[in-house]
C-alpha cells in the first residue's frame, strides 16, 4: 500500500479546489489530487463572468444580488448562504484581481462589468451590470490565475490520480483512496481534513456543455459511503448550446444584446418575459425554446432556434465574444458576423450535490449534523445557494466564495483542534476490489452501449420537461443499466494509463448520480426552477418548499428520501415573474 499523510487533502483542482488550497498552502501540509492536470479542469471552460456587486458602472448592492439569487433559485435557495455569496463575492473578486486576473477594464481602469440573465437592480426592476469578466474566457482566466498562485505557493499536486473512495473512522473523515493513472497503483491519503471539489456530472445527458471528465465522481463516492445527496433533481439546462454538439454559447452573448429568434424571425422571449426578455433566468428561457419548438416554430420544424449576434457588429463581437463565435464557426460552419447560430438547450449545471453548511462542512441529515473533517465546495456541493435554478455567473462566485470559506474554516477552526483519526482496517480494500474486479473480468458487455443508453434516457426522460411516466420509465431503465453495468467488461487490462478503466469507473459514478436525480424528481410533484413536470405545472410551496436528501440503499433505483427545510431569512416566496 502506498501511504501518504497530509493535514489536508483536496480532491479536485478546478476553481473551488484551488481556492481552498490558497487558504491552506501557507499554514499546513496539503495535497491536491486531480484526475486531470489542474489546468484541464472544467472551470477553464466557463465563459461569461463572475458576479459581484462592485457597482463599477452603475449603482449596485450585494443585497440586490442576494435577492436575485434567491428569486432565480425559485425560493429553494438557502438565504443565509445567498447572503454570504453576495456579500463575499466582492472581496473574492478583488482577491482574484490582486493575484493577477486580467479582467476587462472600464475606461477609468476599473473592472468592467456586464449584464447577465436574472441579475437586476433594485429587486427586479431591470438588468444591472454585475458580471465581472475577461472577454468570454473568464473561467479560463480564473483557473490559470489560481494555478499560477499554486505554483507560486508550491502546492503539492498529485496529477492524474483518480480518487476512488473516501474514508471515515471515529466519526470523522480520515482519508481518501486514489489510483495513479500512470501505473494503476492504489494510494491511501491519510488526512485530518478532506475537501471534495470534483465538479459536476453533465455527462449523464446526451446533449451537454460539460467536459468528458464531468462524471460526478465526488458525489457518487460520497453517496456510496452513506453521505446524502441534496436536490439532485435540480439540474440546469442552459438555453443556448450549439445545435447537436451542446457546446455552450454563453449568456454573455445575450448580455451583450444578442437575440433569440424562432422560425418566424420573432424575438419570442419578449412574449414570455416582457421585462427581462432574453435575460430571463435559464430554466425559463430553456422552456420558452421548448415551447416554441412544441408549437412548430423551431427552425425548419426541428428542435432548435436561432441565436443572433450579427446586429452587434464585428468589432463588438471580436472584442467581447471572440471564443464563442469561433465555436460556431469551427463546429457548425456558421459565420456569426452575418448568420444566426442554431442553438438548443444543453445539460449544464448541477444545483444539487453534497450538502454543506455555509462553512463548506458536509452535513449528513435533516438537522444539518456536521461530518467533522469533511468539506465540499464548488459544483459538487449544495450549500444551497442556487436553489432550484442557478443564475449565470453565480457558479464562479460559488467556487471562490465557498472554496475560500472551506479553506479558511479548516485553517482557523478545524486544524487547531483536530487530530488524525486512525485509518480503518484495510483502508484501500473497497477501491482495490473495484479495480481488480473490473480488470479481471473476462466476459461481458462493453461500456459503449450502457453509456449511450444512459445519456439518451436522461435526455429524453429526465430533461427540460418531466412527468410521472417519463421518470418511472427512467427508473426502470436505470435498474436495467445498473444490472448490465455490474457485468461490464474491459477490453484493456493494462496497468499503464488505462483510460478505459477510468471511463468505466466514471460510468458507474454517473449511474449513481442519475439514480439520485431520478428518485428526487419522481418524488417532487411540483414544478420549480430547473425541475419542470408537465403533470404538476405549478410550484407547490405547501408541500415542496424543502430540500430533498437522497441516501443510497441496497435497492437499485430506490434511494431513501428525506427532507429538510429551506432557510428563509428575508425574502418570502413569491411568484417568479421577469
Amino acid at each position, binding site marked *: 500500500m502506498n501511504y501518504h499523510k497530509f493535514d489536508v487533502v483536496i480532491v479536485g483542482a478546478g476553481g473551488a479546489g484551488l481556492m481552498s488550497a490558497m487558504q491552506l498552502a501557507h499554514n499546513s501540509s496539503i495535497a491536491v489530487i486531480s484526475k486531470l492536470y489542474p*489546468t484541464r479542469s*472544467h472551470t477553464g471552460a466557463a465563459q461569461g463572468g463572475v458576479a459581484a456587486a462592485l457597482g463599477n458602472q452603475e449603482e449596485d448592492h450585494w443585497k440586490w444580488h442576494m435577492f436575485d439569487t434567491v428569486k432565480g433559485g425559485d425560493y429553494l435557495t438557502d438565504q443565509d448562504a445567498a447572503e454570504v455569496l453576495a456579500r463575499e463575492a466582492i472581496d473574492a473578486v478583488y482577491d482574484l484581481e490582486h493575484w493577477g486576473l*486580467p479582467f476587462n477594464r472600464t*475606461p477609468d481602469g476599473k473592472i468592467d462589468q456586464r449584464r447577465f440573465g436574472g441579475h437586476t437592480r433594485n429587486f427586479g426592476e431591470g438588468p444591472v451590470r454585475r458580471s465581472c469578466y475577461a472577454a468570454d474566457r473568464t473561467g479560463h482566466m480564473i483557473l490559470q490565475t489560481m494555478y499560477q498562485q499554486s505554483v507560486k505557493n508550491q502546492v503539492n499536486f498529485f496529477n492524474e490520480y483518480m480518487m476512488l473512495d473516501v474514508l471515515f473512522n471515529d466519526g470523522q473523515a480520515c482519508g481518501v483512496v486514489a489510483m495513479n493513472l500512470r501505473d494503476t497503483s492504489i494510494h491511501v491519503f491519510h488526512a485530518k481534513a478532506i475537501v471534495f471539489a470534483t465538479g459536476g456530472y453533465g455527462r449523464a445527458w446526451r446533449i451537454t456543455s460539460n467536459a468528458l*471528465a464531468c462524471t460526478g465522481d465526488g458525489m457518487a463516492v460520497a453517496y456510496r459511503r452513506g453521505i446524502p445527496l441534496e436536490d439532485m433533481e435540480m439540474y440546469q439546462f442552459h438555453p443556448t448550446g450549439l445545435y447537436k454538439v451542446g457546446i455552450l454559447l454563453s449568456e454573455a452573448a445575450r448580455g451583450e444584446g444578442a437575440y433569440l429568434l424562432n422560425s418566424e424571425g420573432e424575438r419570442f422571449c419578449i412574449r414570455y418575459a416582457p421585462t427581462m426578455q432574453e435575460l430571463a433566468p435559464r430554466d425559463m428561457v430553456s422552456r420558452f425554446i421548448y415551447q416554441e419548438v412544441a408549437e412548430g416554430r423551431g427552425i*425548419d420544424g426541428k428542435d432548435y432556434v436561432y441565436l443572433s449576434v450579427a446586429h452587434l457588429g464585428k468589432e463588438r463581437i471580436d472584442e467581447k465574444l471572440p471564443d464563442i463565435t469561433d465555436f460556431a464557426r469551427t463546429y457548425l460552419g456558421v*459565420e456569426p458576423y452575418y448568420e444566426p447560430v442554431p442553438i438548443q438547450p444543453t445539460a449544464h449545471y448541477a444545483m444539487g450535490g453534497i450538502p454543506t453548511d455555509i462553512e463548506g462542512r458536509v452535513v449528513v441529515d435533516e438537522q444539518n449534523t456536521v461530518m467533522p473533517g469533511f468539506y465540499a465546495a464548488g459544483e459538487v456541493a449544495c450549500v444551497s445557494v442556487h436553489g432550484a435554478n442557478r443564475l449565470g455567473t453565480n457558479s464562479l462566485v460559488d467556487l471562490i466564495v465557498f472554496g475560500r470559506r472551506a479553506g479558511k474554516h479548516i485553517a482557523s477552526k478545524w486544524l487547531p483542534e483536530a487530530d488524525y483519526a486512525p485509518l480503518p482496517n484495510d483502508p484501500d480494500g473497497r477501491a482495490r476490489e473495484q479495480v481488480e474486479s473490473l480488470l479481471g473480468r473476462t466476459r461481458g458487455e462493453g461500456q459503449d452501449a450502457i453509456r449511450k443508453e444512459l445519456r439518451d434516457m436522461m435526455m429524453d426522460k429526465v430533461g427540460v420537461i418531466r412527468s410521472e411516466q417519463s421518470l418511472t420509465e427512467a427508473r426502470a431503465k436505470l435498474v436495467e443499466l445498473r444490472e448490465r453495468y455490474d457485468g461490464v467488461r474491459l477490453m*484493456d487490462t493494462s496497468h499503464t494509463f488505462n483510460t478505459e478503466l477510468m471511463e468505466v469507473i466514471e460510468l458507474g459514478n454517473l449511474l449513481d448520480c442519475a439514480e439520485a436525480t431520478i428518485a428526487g424528481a419522481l418524488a417532487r410533484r411540483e414544478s420549480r426552477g430547473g425541475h419542470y413536470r408537465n403533470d404538476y405545472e405549478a410550484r407547490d410551496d405547501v408541500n415542496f418548499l424543502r430540500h430533498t436528501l437522497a441516501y443510497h440503499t441496497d435497492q437499485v433505483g430506490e434511494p431513501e428520501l428525506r427532507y429538510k427545510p429551506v432557510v428563509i431569512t428575508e425574502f418570502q416566496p413569491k411568484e417568479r415573474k421577469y
Partner: protein
Amino acid sequence: MATVTAAPRGATQTGSDLRTVQVRIKRFQPDTNDQPYWQEFTVQVEGKDRLLDALNKIKWQQDGTLTFRRSCAHGVCGSDAMRVNGRNRLACKLLMQDLGARITVEPMLGFPIIRDLVVDMDPFFAKYEKVKPYLINDEPAPHTERLQSPEQRARFDETTKCILCGACTGSCPSVWANSEWVGPASIVNAHRFIFDSRDRGAADRLNILSDRTGVWRCRTIFNCSEACPRGIHVTEAIEEVKRAIMYGSEE
C-alpha cells in the same frame, strides 16, 4: 482567427453524411511491446464529427486499449494536442470533413511517450514553472482593484489565451534538438506577465530567459505560431521578449 476552418455553409441543415475514413495511429503499448508500431482503423463518421469523436468511436467500439487524453472536447482545456497529418493539432478542434479519407495520428514529438498518444507533460510544466508564471508585486494591494487601463490590458491580451496544450513546444525543432531549452509555451507565459502593467517581476524573468536555455535558442521557424490552437502569434511574442531583453521592457 487562425483556427477557423473553412466549412460549407448551411451544413447544419443536412442530415447525416456518413463517410468511411482510415485512421492510421502510431501505437505504443509498453506493457506488451517495447517498440512503437502503426495500426490502421476504419471508422464511419459524419463530416461534422471531430477527430476526437472518431478516436472515441474507435476506443468505445473497436479497441478499448487506444489511449489518449481528452476532456472539454471544444478546444479550451488543452488535453488532446497530438500530431495529425504531420502537424500538431487539438483533436477536438478538427472536423473530419477537413481531414480527408486517410488520416495519420501520432503523439507529439519532443515529449517522452507514456502510452499511444499520451505523452509525459511533467517536464513541460516544470519548464513553465521556471519562468515564474505568476504575478509578482509586493506592494500592498488597495482595498479594491489595482487600476489598469484598457490599453495596458490589451498589451498582453493575446498571451493570456494560452491553454498550456504544448502544441507549440512539441512542434519546435529547437526543442527536438535540445530538451533543456524552455520552449515557446514557457516564453508565451513569461510574456503574459512581462507586459502586464501590474507586474514587477519582468527583470527577473528576462534574466532567466536570457540564459543559455532561454529565448536565444529560438530560430524563428514559426512552427509554433502555426501550431497554436488559440491563434497566439507565438513567434512574435518570443521576438517581443527578445527585444525586451535587449532594450528593456516598457515598464
